């Protein structure tokens, strides 16, 4: 079971989970009169796979948007790497090392797969516009250096053959994979996945699950994901947060969640007798 000391814990399969990477403290988010998130607190530890689940409209995506800076919560604090994070723009959050994918793929359709993944390296490319206009020298060296890294990601996700294909021509499953590649190219310390397996068949889901586990295993990336497929969530994640109507109704290991009465009620409904 959980050893929730600050030094982290060791999972059953022997992975070392570190201290708290990100902590949400009493987050409340309102849109006008509607409360999307009500007083939610949870933490994400270094190296773990953390799932956020809940029925439709529970506020999961809103939560992810709070983490990635699209929404600024009215109340509560976001702590990241041991410091309180002031309200910031999404691009500033990206520069802190938080990358994400979207529920409905947000790739750059007019660009090739390679260019899409290269955009993930933006924050590592520091040459100014004059150096780039000249190209030879610093800009080219930087381009090649980052290309080498990107090629590793491309190998890792097995999309070598579609490198130069415009993204608009790809099928759905591959697009999802390219989006993951773009997020990984940023070498994030926290990777947010918004329904990475939505709309996939069993085979594609298995592929994607394998990639998620591999990413976590090989790069040690901390992952927070939203997913509807319970089987996948229970298999992949180390700890799960359950939300319903904007409130947190459960938090713990998959086994805890499975036996949590509030969660069962939320998903199956409560008998009125």
């Amino acid at each position, binding site marked *: 079971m959980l050893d929730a000391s600050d030094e982290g814990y060791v999972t059953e399969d022997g992975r070392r989970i570190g201290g708290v990477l990100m902590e949400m403290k009493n987050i409340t988010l309102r849109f006008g009169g509607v409360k999307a998130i009500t007083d939610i607190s949870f933490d994400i530890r270094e190296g773990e796979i953390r799932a956020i689940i809940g029925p439709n409209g529970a506020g999961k995506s809103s939560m992810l948007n709070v983490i*990635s800076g699209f929404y600024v919560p009215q109340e509560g604090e976001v702590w990241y790497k041991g410091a309180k994070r002031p309200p910031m*723009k*999404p*691009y500033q959050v*990206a*520069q802190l090392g938080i*990358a*994400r994918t*979207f529920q409905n793929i*947000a*790739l*750059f*359709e*007019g*660009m090739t797969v390679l*260019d899409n993944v*290269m*955009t*993930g*390296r*933006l*924050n590592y*490319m520091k*040459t100014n*516009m004059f150096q*780039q*206009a*000249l*190209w030879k020298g610093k*800009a*080219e060296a*930087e*381009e*090649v250096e980052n*290309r*080498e890294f990107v*090629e590793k990601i491309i190998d890792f996700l097995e999309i070598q053959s579609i490198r130069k294909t415009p993204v608009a021509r790809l099928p759905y499953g591959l697009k999802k994979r390219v989006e993951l590649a*773009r*997020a990984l190219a*940023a070498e994030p310390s926290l990777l947010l996945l918004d329904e990475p397996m939505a709309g996939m068949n069993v085979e594609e889901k298995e592929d994607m699950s394998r990639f998620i586990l591999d990413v976590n295993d090989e790069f040690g990336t901390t992952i927070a994901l939203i997913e509807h497929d319970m089987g996948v969530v229970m298999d992949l994640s180390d700890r799960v947060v359950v939300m319903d109507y904007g409130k947190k109704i459960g938090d713990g290991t998959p086994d805890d969640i499975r036996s949590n009465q509030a969660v069962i009620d939320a998903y199956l409904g409560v008998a009125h007798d």
Partner: protein
Amino acid sequence: MFYREAGDFKTSYEEDSQTFPIKFDRYRYYFVLAFAFAVVPFVINDYWVNAIFMPFLIYSIAAIGLNILVGYCGQVSLGTGGFMAVGAYAVYKLMTAFPEVNIIFHVIAAGGITAIVGVLFGLPSLRIKGFYLAVATLAAQFFLVWLFNRVPWFYNHSASGQINAPERTVFGVEVTGPNTEAWATYLFCLVFTLICAILARNLTRGVQGRKWMAIRDMDIAAEIIGVDPLRAKLSAFAVSSFFVGIAGALFFAVYLGAVEVGEAFGINKSFLVLFMVIIGGLGSIFGSFAGAAFLVLLPVLLKNTLVGGLGWPTDLASHLEFMIVGALIIAFLIAEPHGLAQLWRVAKEKLRLWPFPH
């Protein structure tokens, strides 16, 4: 058959990311360059340079500039004429204020001044998009033309309200003023066009180009991977205006020699350059050249066939020319919305296999 990439292997990422990765393309590019520098200057005369080569080269620079803004960064602009006017008046003021400085520096400085003005008028792009932004840039067009008409300081208080390019030389050869030679003005513009195209290509293939295209394709996703939309959009306006300003400076100083702002840089110019970009192909440097060539050559060709070949009266021919160009633009947009650059790509695809079916 004529065209293949098989066997053309790359062993480094430098080679893979070059502008012309295929050997055949690369040699054709060198050939065109050699032809433009070593053959054309010796055979060129005043008619060719004034009717075809100079407008083609100068409009190419303007189209490259506008393509960076519209085609790469996705920000629609109808202010090209106004920005060209900024380049023209900037180079005029610099030429008359610092006659001892070489005109090359004046042209570049004029581009720089236009870049600053472009950034100012690009500020609304942070809040508005699409058609609304187009209307905002239209304001730039009318305001700038009005400004250069109404403030005498810009045209050095000349009685006619026109600006006239004084005579200036490069390496002892006159490139502006009434006594220029065809080959000199041609080479002067060619060098500027070539350098602008190379700079634009380098900017668009690297990290800056990816930032612009990311903003164009999906601004929310661009922000989430760390693109600052403010800097990306304003840098596109700056770079675009820089090229457009250089085009305006050359258009006035080298090509026309004397300019009345409302006539030379009116709204028609904005539309002309926008058509070049759309017909040539959005988001393609080659497309900028193709579009400029198309819209410069087409009227000349039509005039020669209708007036010279069929003996029609000049006024009838010029009316008809408007209609034909208009119809062609519409036909083009329906048949190939991605422009000449896309046609070229498709042709190359086909030529790889031709005449074999597989």
